[in-house]
C-alpha cells in the first residue's frame, strides 16, 4: 500500500535529511498493516543512522510524537493502529529550544 511518511523536529537527520517519503509498503498477505510493523519497516528501510534515536524496544523512543492522519496515535491504538492505503504518518521529535 501507498503511505506518506514524514519526519520532523530533527528526526529527518536520521534518514538523510529527507523529510517526506512516499513509500510503497508490503503488508504481506493482508492488505492492511499495523503501526508496529510499520515501525520495523521504517527502522530497516529508512533510518540510516543512530536507530536508537528513533526506537526504543518495540516502540518509538521517548519524546517522539506519532501522528496518523494528523491525529495522535494514542487516539487510534498506538502500535495496534491499523493503517490504510494513502495514510499520512508523521514522526516528530518534541523541540525544547527557544
Amino acid at each position, binding site marked *: 500500500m501507498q503511505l506518506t511518511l514524514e519526519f520532523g*523536529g530533527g528526526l529527518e537527520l536520521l534518514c538523510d535529511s529527507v*523529510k517526506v517519503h512516499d513509500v510503497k509498503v508490503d503488508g504481506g498477505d493482508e492488505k492492511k498493516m499495523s503501526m508496529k510493523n510499520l515501525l520495523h519497516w521504517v527502522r530497516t528501510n529508512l533510518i540510516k543512522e543512530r536507530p536508537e534515536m528513533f526506537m526504543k524496544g518495540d516502540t518509538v*523512543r*521517548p519524546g*517522539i510524537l506519532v501522528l496518523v492522519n494528523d491525529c495522535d496515535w*494514542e487516539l487510534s491504538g498506538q502500535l495496534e493502529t491499523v493503517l490504510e492505503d494513502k495514510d499520512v504518518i508523521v514522526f516528530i521529535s*518534541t523541540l*525544547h*529550544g527557544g
Partner: protein
Amino acid sequence: MASSDGAVDDASRIRREIEALKNERSDIDRQISDLETQLRGLQSKTEVVHNDGLAAHGLSPDLIYRHSRHLMLPSFGVQGQSKLSKSSVLVVGAGGLGSPALLYLAACGLGKIGIVDHDVVELNNLHRQVIHSEEYIGSPKVESAAAACLKINSTVLITKHQEALRTTNALDIVSKYDIVIDATDNAPSRYLINDCCVVLGKPLVSGAAIGMEGQLTVYNYKGGPCYRCLFPLPPPTTACQRCSDSGVLGVVPGIIGCLQALEAIKIASSVGEPLSGRMLLLDSLSTKIRIVKIRGRSSQCEVCGENSFFTPQHFKGFDYEKFTQTPLSVAPVKLSLLTPDFRITAKEYKQRIVQGEAHVLVDVRPEHHFKIVSLPNALNIPLTMIEQRVGDISSALKEKQPNSSGSSPHLYVVCRRGNDSQRAVQLLHKLGFVAARDIIGGIESWAREVDPKFPTY
C-alpha cells in the same frame, strides 16, 4: 478476553461521544459569549445616554483610546479588554520566544506581566530576541525586556524575576499569576514549569522553536492534557538540540512567540478556543502549518492523572536535572575524556606553529561550522566522517616533512569547544593514530587565549 475487548470498545466510543459533546458545548459557549457581547454593546449605548458618557466597564478614557481597536472587535470588545486588564501572565524566558510574546503582552493591556530570566543579553541573541537592543548587551535580560515593555506601555505592571525558575522558587513565583508562558530552551525547565502549573492549576502556553521548525500547544487547560501526559518520559539528552548548537532562523521563534501571546490573550480574555488538546507544528522551510489532534489528559499521568498525588511537597523534592539528565543552567558541558598527555592548550599550539613544527590539524566540526571560521591550514573532517576518511589523514601526515628532531609529524584535533575533539582523539587512537592530541577548549579557547580578534559564534 472478549468482554475486556468489549469494555475497551465501549470506553473509546464513550470518549468519542464526550469529545463531540464538549465540542458542541464550546460552540454554544462561543455563541453565548458573542450574544453577551452584542447585548453589552446595546446596554452600554443606553448607559452612555444616562451617565454622561462614563461606561460601567471601568476603562478610563485613555485606556479606551489606547485599546480602541480591541474594543471595536465584536468578538473581543469591552468585556475581553476588561478581563485582560484584570489578568496576569508570567513569561518564563526572555529569549527568542519570550521577546515577541512580551512585546505583544505589554501592548495588549494586560494588568500584570512577570518576566523570569537569569541570563544577560549577548550580541548573538539579537538576531531573534527582538525585545533586546545593542545598548543592553551585558545587562540582565529581565531589565532590558522590562524597559522595552514599559516603553510601549507605561501603564502595565511589570515584575522582574532575575533568577532561573527552580523547585525552590517556582511555586512562589508562579502562584502570583493567572497564566504561564513557557518560553524556555531546555527539557528540565519544561518539565518543571509543567509540574508547577499542574500543582497550582495554571494554564500553560508552551512554545518551542529550533532550526526552521516550531511547535505550540496549551497544557493543563480546563481538563486538557499536560506536558507529561504527552511526554511521560524525557527524551535522551542527545535528542535535545539547543539553539546555541543547532542554530535557529530568528523569525521562527518570533512566529511561535507571537502565537504564544495570542493564546495567552485568548485565555485571559475568555475569547475563542485555546489550542488545548491540539498542537501546532510549523515547518518554515516549506511554509507548512499543521494543527494536529493530540491525546487528552491521561488518567495514568504521574502528575495530573486521576490517581496522582503530586503535591507541592513532591514538586519541591523532585530532581528535574536528574530526571532529564540535563542541567537547568545553559552552560555547555565540558567533557574530560582524555589524559593530559593527549591534550594541549591553544597557547601551546600557537607556540608550535611559531616554532615551525610539522603537523596536521584536523577540525572535526560539521562542514557548515567550518565554513564560518577556521584555523589556518586546518583539514576539515567532521566527527561522523573520521572512520571513512582515515586515508585523508594518513596522506596529509605523509606529505609533511619529519621534524628537525627526526620525529614524525604530529596530529592535532580541534573543534568548537573541546568536547568533540576529545571524542575524535579517542577514535583516532583506536584507528592507530596513537599520538593524536586535541586542543583544549577548541577554537573558542584560541579566540580567548591567543587571538581575541578570531571570530566566535
